[in-house]
């Protein structure tokens, strides 16, 4: 042990790569990658070059670090690089998607798009007003159904649930989370067929389908947050003689409120973009329909799909409208997310972490 310590250089001062070494190596590897790409695949391409560079970088950096800093630090560095790389890889599709949606959707992002429906529109012009109305109505109804049920169910599971019933509900909430969205649509369609005759397609049916998807999301997110609420808080409240339901309403829920709100908003953001169930349950139309009980109701995601999948003769106009619809949808979802975050932050309980 002592011989080891004396022969080794002081680990505090020696045995470390200089600060900029990583970036220099990365740049070098990228350049080599570009050269390799030009030599192997004839014309220079950015994508493959970056790929070669990144693949080259990992072993080179590992070898370098291992020679200077030792095996453990080298492994640590490689892990760090892989993890950072995973993040960069994730950003690529997001950046591409946002860029394409913006650049293709901005052309028709005008007043007409938000004031016109597609009634009697062939070719250029027209808008998505009917779809925007439909989305707001259907999502609103779905939230009104799903949020109370989901919230109360989570409270039951955390505060009251005991025994077989609680276990089976937990189990089936998990199962429900896995329900494919299109199955929810088929369920709503089948339900309406049984109640109101075959082929009944309306906004309420779409809302039912969405609420089936939304309930388990709300339950899961809320349940997890309620479980994190420290038991000491509940016990303190009980010790003061506060009834159980008041404890839940006044102590447990406020503590978890920020998370619950962001959970609900994320749930809304997720279902607002659901397409498949609405295609089946709420249907297609080109006209404004604000009555959720009768006739098909267009929604924004279905509008996008419809414009893309059923174009007329002049395809570019339909694609333009599809991209603008996509842009609107993304902006809507982003706004929802932002609102959720702001609320979550403002009401967040003060905590150490």
């Amino acid at each position, binding site marked *: 042990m002592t011989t080891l310590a004396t022969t080794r250089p002081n680990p505090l001062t020696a045995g470390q790569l200089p600060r900029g070494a990583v970036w220099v190596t990365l740049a070098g590897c990228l350049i080599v990658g570009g050269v390799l790409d030009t030599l192997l695949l004839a014309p220079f391409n950015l994508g493959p070059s970056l790929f070669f560079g990144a693949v080259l970088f990992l072993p080179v950096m590992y070898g370098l670090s291992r020679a200077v800093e030792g095996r*453990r630090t080298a492994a*640590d560095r490689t*892990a*760090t690089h*892989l*993890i*950072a790389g*995973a993040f960069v890889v*994730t950003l690529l599709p*997001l950046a591409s*998607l946002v860029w*394409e*949606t913006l650049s293709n959707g901005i052309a028709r992002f005008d007043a007409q798009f938000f004031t016109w429906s597609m009634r009697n529109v062939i070719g250029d012009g027209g808008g998505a007003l009917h779809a925007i109305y439909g989305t707001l109505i259907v999502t609103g109804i779905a939230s009104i159904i799903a949020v*109370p*049920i989901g919230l*109360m*169910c989570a409270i039951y599971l955390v505060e*009251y649930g005991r025994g077989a019933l609680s276990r*089976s509900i937990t*189990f*089936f909430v998990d199962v429900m*989370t*896995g*329900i*494919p*969205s*299109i*199955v*929810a649509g*088929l*369920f709503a*369609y*089948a*339900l309406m*067929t*049984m109640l109101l005759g075959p082929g009944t397609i309306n906004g309420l049916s779409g809302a039912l389908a969405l609420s089936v998807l939304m*309930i*388990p999301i709300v*339950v899961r997110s809320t349940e*997890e947050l309620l479980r994190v609420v420290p*038991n*000491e808080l509940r016990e303190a409240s009980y010790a003061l003689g506060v*009834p*159980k*339901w*008041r404890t839940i309403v006044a102590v447990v829920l406020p503590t978890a409120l920020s998370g619950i709100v962001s959970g609900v908003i994320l749930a809304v953001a997720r279902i607002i*973009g*659901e*397409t*498949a169930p609405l*295609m*089946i349950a709420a249907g*297609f139309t080109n006209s404004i329909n604000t009555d959720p009980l009768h006739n098909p109701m267009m929604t924004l*995601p279905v509008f996008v*799909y419809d414009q*893309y999948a059923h174009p007329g003769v002049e395809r570019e106009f339909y694609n333009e409208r599809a991209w603008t619809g996509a842009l609107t949808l993304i902006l809507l979802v*982003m706004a*929802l*997310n932002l609102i959720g975050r702001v609320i979550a932050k403002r009401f967040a309980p003060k905590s150490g*972490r």
Partner: protein
Amino acid sequence: MSSVTRSTQEVTPTPSLQGRPPRALRRLGDRVFGGLSTGSGITILVILAAVAGFLLIQAIPALTTSPEVLLQQGYGPFWSWILPFAWGTIWSSFWALLMAVPVAIGVALCISHYAPRRLAGTLGYVIDLLAAVPSVVFGLWGSIVLATAVQPLWLWLNTHLGWIPFFSGQVSGTGRTLLTASIVLAVMILPIITALCREIFIQTPILHEEAALALGATRWEMVKMTVLPFARAGIVSSVMLGLGRALGETMAVAMVLSGSREITVKVLTSQNPNTIAAVIAQNFPEAYGLKTSELIAGGLVLFVITLLVNMAARLIVGRYKDLSGAN
């Protein structure tokens, strides 16, 4: 490791020592509130039973009608009609998971333990943004942008790795293949897996982490020793949730893939098996009578497949739960 301190689990009124226990007050508020929450819990069971029940009732005609009639008025005998699509569903989800899971865990670690604390919130928001992008937008992007971008890559894979059965065959000229659809699926399930993993990684007891670091562990060793064992059950369950979404995801596949009915392991050709969900979405608006019934029966099959996946997930999670201390 697993001995996380457990505080008292529940508050039961301790019987008074004097022998005359004070009667617990049955307040009206408690009864109403308890009843409401229990009712909501039961509603979940009712809804799920209704989903299965209504689908089954509507699917019965497709399952009981003779094959000859189905051949004339429907899409053909049910089981031979659905089988290729069931294969396509499983096969595309497999590739999506293969691509998404390692990246998702990496991203989750990046946000929870690697990124500077000030940056982590922003990075998390970026991933949430990806989760929030509606599936139809992914479909639009996948079929118009991604398919053309990856086509040369598929050509390259086919030329150089064509000896692997998956990559053999005639490469599709449009790039709209099963593997392209799987990439879109992977991008779509990645944020879900990431978000769940991140939540659990953050909950790792900070004392465990600090203990590992104090013993001289590097950051990666700390993650390996404390974070990953703690989060094992959570990782499994998040992956299963991702799988569930990939199996049932409709629009991305319906818009990217121009599916056929061939059972094949090849992922780069234009003869790809379609998925059940995509078949339903593409055909439902025009279907009637027995065709509608067959599509609903297809939905029932999808429902059963996802049910089995979720049950398997529960079993795995149950086995690891005691080890990790995550729950």
